[in-house]
């Protein structure tokens, strides 16, 4: 199909991959090599899964392991493949009123926030970040409610802006944090915790449910994503001079095995 106009492949993904610029950086190679035109629809994870369910897109790149598993189990998607991960961090006011720096564990950190009634801005939506946050509260055995717990119901960027304005804590993915770091008085107070890993998978929409879905393109995309060359490129991606995503599908160890960062665990 070299001479035909490129076939369209519809990719629903989370805002983090689009906003960080990762897709702008990766996709041109894919389009060149495979003769597809990728239409990127960047929405929340919840909405992306919904679009997959409805067959309105061909392939997903999302980060919500539990929901993804349900999605595949229900027969909406196939070929779920781990692609990469990044991680979440907890940011908060530099004065650190809750004393996260003295916390012994992530659960302890969360408890300190609720105990000191320090303001915490929550995404309050169905995003992967919110799901992660909920699991952390559960882990800490805290039911977050009260004046200090602000359910924003917005995207990550807006929540970071709100937390900055309100001198509040919040849980954020590292990519968005890097983008906002310069204009925020907040700083990272908890990071590099395995509990805060944020894995991304690609899922093809099940062609048995929707015959005319571009399954071929979806598989081409997934296969391309796990190619060593692509995985290297993912590892090499930098945002504000910092690596952001750690490839999960590389078998060799030529790629950086872990995130190297100047910011030390506080």
């Amino acid at each position, binding site marked *: 199909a070299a001479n035909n106009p490129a076939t369209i492949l519809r990719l629903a993904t989370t805002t983090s991959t689009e906003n960080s610029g990762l897709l702008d950086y990766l996709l041109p190679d894919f389009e060149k090599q495979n003769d597809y035109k990728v239409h990127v629809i960047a929405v929340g994870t*919840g909405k992306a899964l919904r679009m997959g369910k409805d067959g309105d897109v061909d392939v997903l790149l999302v980060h919500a392991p539990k929901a993804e598993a349900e999605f595949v189990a229900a027969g909406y998607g196939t070929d779920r493949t781990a692609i990469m991960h990044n991680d979440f961090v907890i940011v908060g006011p530099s004065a650190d009123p809750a004393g996260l720096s003295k916390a012994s564990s992530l659960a302890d950190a969360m408890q300190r926030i609720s105990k000191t009634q320090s303001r915490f801005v929550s995404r309050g939506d169905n995003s992967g970040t919110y799901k992660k946050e909920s699991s952390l509260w559960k882990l800490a055995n805290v039911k977050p409610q009260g004046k200090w717990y602000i359910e*924003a*119901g917005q995207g990550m960027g807006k929540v970071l802006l709100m937390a*900055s304005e309100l001198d509040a804590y919040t849980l954020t993915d590292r990519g968005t944090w890097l983008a906002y770091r310069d204009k925020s008085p907040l700083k990272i107070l908890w990071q590099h915790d395995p509990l805060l890993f944020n894995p991304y998978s690609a899922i093809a929409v099940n062609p048995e449910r929707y015959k005319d879905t571009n399954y071929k393109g979806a598989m081409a995309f997934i296969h391309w994503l796990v190619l060593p060359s692509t995985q290297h490129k993912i590892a090499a991606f930098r945002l504000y001079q910092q690596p952001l995503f750690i490839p999960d599908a590389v078998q060799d160890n030529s790629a950086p095995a872990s995130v190297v960062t100047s910011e030390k665990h506080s």
Partner: protein
Amino acid sequence: MTDSSLLSSLLDALQLLLLGDGKLWSIILVSFKVSSLAMLVAALPAVICGFLLAYMRFPGRRLLISLFNTLLAVPAVVVGLTFYILLSRHGPLGDWKLLFTQTAMVLGQIALCFPIMVAMSHAAFQAIDLRAWETARTIGAGTVQAFMMIVSEARYAILGAFVAGFGRIIAEVGASMMLGGNILHYTRNIPTAIALETSKGELSQGIALGIVLVTLSFLLVSVLHYFQGRGQIQ
């Protein structure tokens, strides 16, 4: 929502409506409280501006009219952004600490509904015979009385301006989201709640909230229309 057919979405929506819950009512209340406040503040000045644009001659009048018409096309999110920068901690009005309050939402909504009401009430006055003003003055009405008489002559179109202004802000999401922050029980109104539900993929909840909004608006509009008169040429 268990499956995505239109019918089941609607059924879900209806169910949600009938069951209702405290959360829903708090959201509805925020919506109507904030937008009504904005209307209360903006309506009279807007009508007066429209009146002056129609009845006074001064340099720059036509430019001003074009300007107000243009301001109709300012996206709510841009209004939101502008006020955000003004009200943000580092902004010139940061000391007021208004960001993420209902007051900030009211400010944003005033800025949104004001231009459309000026433009439409100007058009309304513009359609009124000049003799109406002359007659009012000649039978002894003072400036304020005469203004009221002209407003009453143009009431059909002016109430239309109010409806359009209210419609613009009760339904807008950009400014409320930026300035209010969509905080549950405080600054979450119907449009931001719809945006949230939608972003979660909960389309039926979004539609349900939409139906609530439209139903309440319909009641409001019908009441207005009762005052507006027959709406038929005479």
